[in-house]
């Protein structure tokens, strides 16, 4: 596959550099008048955060991203509804929708996916994550053991692919978590592309599952040499399974005209957003800061640097095998334009992996 750049929709709120407090743009948190009584507010309750999410998706499309990731955040809006809501705002974007295999019937999920494929000219994709801790899963009504999480994902995908790709013969399956008899879609729902499956995880079990099963395995941000090593492991597992697999990388960015500006903004953001972060502004790799935006945009580490430095770092990740970049930056709307204007062109002009369109 060619290299893809996927932006992110901040489904539980967004911040800004200079005021890192998470907020839902366009949405009143309370019924109180948001300004001094001396200033009018024409919005009333006409808008909420969905209007902002719609804008971010449109921005990502206009700024030249290839897709948008719609993360599953238990404190935010539900990703499948968000995906449908923003789908019409975008013409090209892959809609990479994150969820957990605990959400319900995998047949129903497959049906939902086929409708998305029909309505978006096959732009829908799945990122299936293992989800939160056992205690938090209990609050989702999910009693599956930690040890079974990957096995459940495997069954979920097996059933979904089975019913989507079943035509003309029916698909039946009886597993530990999912069951279907004579399943499969007909008429206009037949013969659609199953959503691409993105999986993640750093354990050997997770890598082996992806190697057998995933279209893309998404790694957490780490220094390029560490990533290269893990990509090597993943590929050897895939080779054992007789297949090839795409590599994704989830990383946040603070890109500015100069490194100095980027570092200044990153430090201020850290001070405003996390009390535990103080004193950790020592890069773990070249231009790579760990944990800076974990609680906001969500990646394990953040590239902080000039446009050239960030582009260079991304190119090194590409050289280490990355084809799918899952990027984000706060605030997601403005920063999608910034990256589209200043960083992506630097990469695309040099990236030999990318097919010339």
């Amino acid at each position: 596959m060619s290299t893809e750049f996927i932006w992110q929709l901040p489904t539980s709120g967004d911040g800004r550099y200079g005021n890192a407090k998470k907020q839902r743009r366009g949405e009143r948190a309370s019924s109180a008048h948001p300004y001094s009584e001396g200033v009018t507010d024409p919005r009333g309750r006409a808008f909420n955060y969905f209007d902002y999410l719609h804008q971010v998706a449109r921005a990502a499309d206009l700024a030249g991203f290839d897709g948008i990731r719609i993360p599953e955040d238990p404190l935010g809006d539900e990703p499948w509804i968000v995906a449908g809501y923003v789908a019409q705002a975008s013409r090209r974007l892959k809609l990479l929708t994150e969820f957990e295999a605990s959400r319900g019937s995998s047949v129903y999920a497959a049906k939902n996916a086929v409708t998305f494929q029909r309505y978006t000219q096959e732009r829908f994709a799945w990122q299936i994550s293992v989800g939160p801790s056992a205690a938090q899963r209990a609050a989702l009504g999910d009693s599956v053991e930690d040890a079974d999480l990957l096995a459940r994902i495997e069954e979920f995908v097996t059933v979904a692919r089975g019913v989507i790709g079943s035509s003309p013969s029916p698909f039946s399956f009886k597993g530990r978590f999912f069951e279907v008899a004579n399943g499969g879609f007909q008429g206009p729902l037949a013969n659609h592309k199953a959503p691409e499956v993105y999986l993640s995880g750093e354990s050997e079990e997770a890598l082996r599952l992806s190697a057998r099963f995933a279209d893309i395995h998404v790694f957490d941000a780490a220094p390029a040499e560490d990533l290269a090593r893990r990509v090597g492991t993943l590929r050897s597992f895939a080779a054992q399974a007789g297949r090839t697999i795409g590599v994704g990388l989830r990383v946040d960015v603070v890109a500015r005209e100069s490194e100095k500006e980027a570092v200044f903004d990153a430090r201020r953001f850290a001070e405003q957003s996390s009390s535990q972060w103080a004193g950790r502004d020592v890069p773990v790799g070249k231009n790579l800061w760990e944990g800076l935006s974990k609680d906001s945009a969500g990646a394990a580490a953040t590239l902080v640097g000039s446009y050239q430095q960030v582009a260079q770092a991304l190119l090194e990740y590409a050289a280490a095998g990355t084809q799918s970049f899952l990027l984000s930056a706060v605030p997601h709307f403005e920063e999608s334009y910034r990256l589209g204007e200043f960083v992506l062109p630097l990469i695309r002009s040099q990236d030999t992996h990318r097919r010339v369109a």
Partner: protein
Amino acid sequence: MAIDFFWRIPTHGEPSSHRSRTPYRGDWPPGDNAQRKPGLAGGGADGFSYVEYLTQIAQAAEISGFQGGLIPSFPMTDEPWVISAFLARDTKTFRFMIPFQPGFLSPVTAARMTASLQRATGGRALYNVIPGGGGPQQLWWGDPVAHDDRYGRTTEFLDVLRGIWKGGPFTYRGRFYQIEDAGLPFPLTEEEYPEIYFSGSSDAALASASKHADFYLSWLEPFDQLRDKFDRVKQRTAALGRKIKCAVRVDVVARPTEEEAWDEVRTGFDRIDKATLERFNSRGGSESVGAARQSRNRPATVTSYKDLIIEPNVWSGFGLLRGGQTNGIVGSYDQVAQRLDQLVELGADAFILASTPHLEEAYRVGEEVLPLVRGHVTTPALRAVG
């Protein structure tokens, strides 16, 4: 209270009239598993998909005075949550009635999806809860729970949904669902709990409906039979200290004159092929009690459209013309409105109407029939101010 009228979104595709199955709008003429027509023109790939036509219907319905519409969900149709989310920004007042069975989603997922859809639409989501049609089809959906258990599960499902809606923490230990300290996050908690229309005709269904439903939804049945059914639902619900309203899902063919309306039906009936009619005459096989109740009052063998007139202005052959439920009202605008008012008298407080083609007929029914329905208002004077 005033009567709510909903329309229907033809997720099952649609012919351009009751008279004939072709030409076909949308992309799946029944029986044709291969054909796919992205739009209306020509059938080639044109960048449009069926949702664009559905959007037109939803807009026609809201412009014409309908509350919103039912978005039917069957094995061969698109998925109603996706349709609702897609239509959110293209509609203003249209309310999305989403049918679902508890086996499709976990209750926590369903709650979050619903709250997010309420946020995306300004509170325009509501449910048509279907405990389950049953039979082998249930496993097609990936749902292994048996028919009678599905009602117990439905009750538990709605217990959990209601329990976490305002944020919790909510703990529940049921037969089907166990959940610890759950709750929706702010600001999803600020949304209205969706109205619930509940379908299902068996005793197990009625027991479940009595606890959680705002509306008990039935297909059109012979009027006397329907009166008994609504009375029974209301008695059961009253015994639980709750009130429930009733609603009827019914097809209509309304024309300026009765003759024109029956002409439409006769033309459609006369064009049905023999095999379809034979299948109709020997129908059976579902666990659905509602399907069996609808076919009462019908002769064993049907040879003319007139055999399917089961009482004045009620025709029992819509399933032949377009598939799905089968009883509908046929008549002049006045007659259709009068029959709807009779249904109000015997207990209906809301309707889901449908007619083919759903786009043009939304305008026709909205413009010609709805203004003639009196509802509970009995005197012209009251009507003028109400």
